[in-house]
């Protein structure tokens, strides 16, 4: 079976040729299969977020190649990459990257704004997702008025509104208490059952050791351990 995502000798260097040059990834090669649930682990600064960005087509590597279903995305022009992102990935950022002055609903609906989906359909989807994440009562609040845990749930809700085939989540339980974390893992399990490919980064043992996880990838100082 050909892998969904192939990462081939990828390196990522920030601030190249400058005094503060950082090599975030060194020569990483990794295949990810459709439907598989993978978790990236490793100490802080080991390159987990950098690798997820490459997988989700949010950035380009300094060297090496990334293939999505045999198609090399590394060299694709930006306008095609946008389409690739939209049609394949839902991304939960470590820092959430929500628009703090927009309401919860508006944030969740952002991915659907530049589509031809009618407004009514958008509202229905928003209600459904809000319900699922227990955010209905927060729907009209501005994001900056929310707690960290609530913001995290908004970020996850936004990633799922587009019904992506691949969900990428960077430290999804970082701001959740145990009960919420359990709820999230249940949700991820049901997504997995529906065939969604899950790629997580975490150093939360609860996530790493969860029965849902098929594969654990350990990063150390930018390289696979």
């Amino acid at each position, binding site marked *: 079976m050909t892998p969904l995502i192939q990462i081939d000798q990828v390196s990522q260097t920030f601030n190249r040729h400058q005094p503060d040059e950082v090599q975030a990834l060194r020569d990483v090669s990794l295949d990810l299969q459709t439907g598989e649930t993978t978790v990236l682990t490793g100490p802080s600064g080991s390159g987990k977020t950098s690798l997820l960005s490459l997988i989700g087509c949010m950035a380009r590597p300094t060297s090496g190649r990334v293939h999505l279903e045999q198609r090399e995305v590394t060299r694709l022009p930006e306008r095609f990459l*946008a389409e690739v*992102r939209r049609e394949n990935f839902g991304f939960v950022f470590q820092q959430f990257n929500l628009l703090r002055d927009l309401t919860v609903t508006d944030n969740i609906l952002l991915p659907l704004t530049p589509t031809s989906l009618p407004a009514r359909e958008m509202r229905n989807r928003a209600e459904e997702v809000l319900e699922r994440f227990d955010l209905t009562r927060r729907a009209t609040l501005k994001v900056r008025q929310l707690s960290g845990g609530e913001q995290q749930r908004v970020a996850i809700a936004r990633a799922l509104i587009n019904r992506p085939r691949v969900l990428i989540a960077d430290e999804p339980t970082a701001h959740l208490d145990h009960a919420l974390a359990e709820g999230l893992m249940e949700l991820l399990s049901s997504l997995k059952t529906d065939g969604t490919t899950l790629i997580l980064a975490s150093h939360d043992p609860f996530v790493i050791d969860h029965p849902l996880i098929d594969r654990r990838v350990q990063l150390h100082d930018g390289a696979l351990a």
Partner: protein
Amino acid sequence: MTRQWKLLDYALASLLRRKGKNLSILVIYTLTVATLASVLFLTQSLRQEATKVLSGGPDLVVQRLMAGRHELVPLNYADPIRKLPGVKSVQPRVWGYYYDSLKKVNLTLMGLPAEPEILVLLEGERPSKGQEIAVGRGIADTYGFGVGDSLLLIDAAGEKQLYRITGLFETGSDLLTNDLILFPEAELRRFFAMPTNRATDLAVSVYNPREVATLAQKVRYHLPDSRPIGKTEILHTYDTVFHWRSGMLLTVSLAALIAFCILAWDKATGISADERREIGILKAVGWDTTDVLALKFWEGLAVSLVAFLLGTILAWTHTYVFGAGLLAPVIQGWSVLFPDFDLTPSVDLYQLFILGMLTVTPYIACTVIPSWKAAITDPDSVMRS
């Protein structure tokens, strides 16, 4: 279609989110448009007015030159002109200027019955006896007089003369009658101490307006010291004057334009970190470059269109309701020529369209182009920077 509506909706919402900044831009921008449009309306109305004045005037005016200067015309100059084929009538006119140093206005004094056309506009009695006059609206307003009041003027001999107002030219906006005082001709001659066998000029009307140029040539042939001026020539002179005036107005416009450029430059030199981050996020959640640019386009269009409309309305009000008061220092020359008169609204849609293009397009460019770079960059680096 749905997609563009939703983007427009989002654009309006995000303008409201940055209320403070966008409101100040809108204000500056509206004032810029208002200044430019005021200048436009004003020149347009004045030009319109001049054209109207002249379309009622004589086809050909014959003056006399002596030593290169305007001289009084002997009445018998009318005879050879009258004999030219194609000439309908020749009417000697007695008129001149009078400067009132107290009110600091220039008035036009004209003798009856030189210009029968304008009598149509008169309300009240026409002046018939000596010491009777009819005046234009502008004069009545300047002096605060009406029919029955008396106006004091100083004649050529330096004597104070009291004239009773018997009629008014009510059409307040008409340049022709606005600063006009109509006298019985004999009285005006006396006032100016003008010899009875002379006139200020001769008004010639012709059967075929296309023959004016040829007739002018013939007049000069028969009367070598005459200066015949065709209506088109007068129009031309008026236009030159207006263009010269427009030149001064251009200075104001330029000032406004500079303000606008500063604004544009401020926008063009970069988008805020906040805006960059937002673009990064939008791209990360699946917007593509064209979506982001469309969003910026709608933002720019909304602001500039609103500014354009508000500015135009403001300019209209300023020019036609408040008589272009704020432009007064620049157009002072006019108020000497014509004591203040109401402008007739006159709008050149084509010019307005050009103004719209000149203000809306650059603003949209200033909104879209700086976002371009952020819109084509990987979301990861946009969000982090």
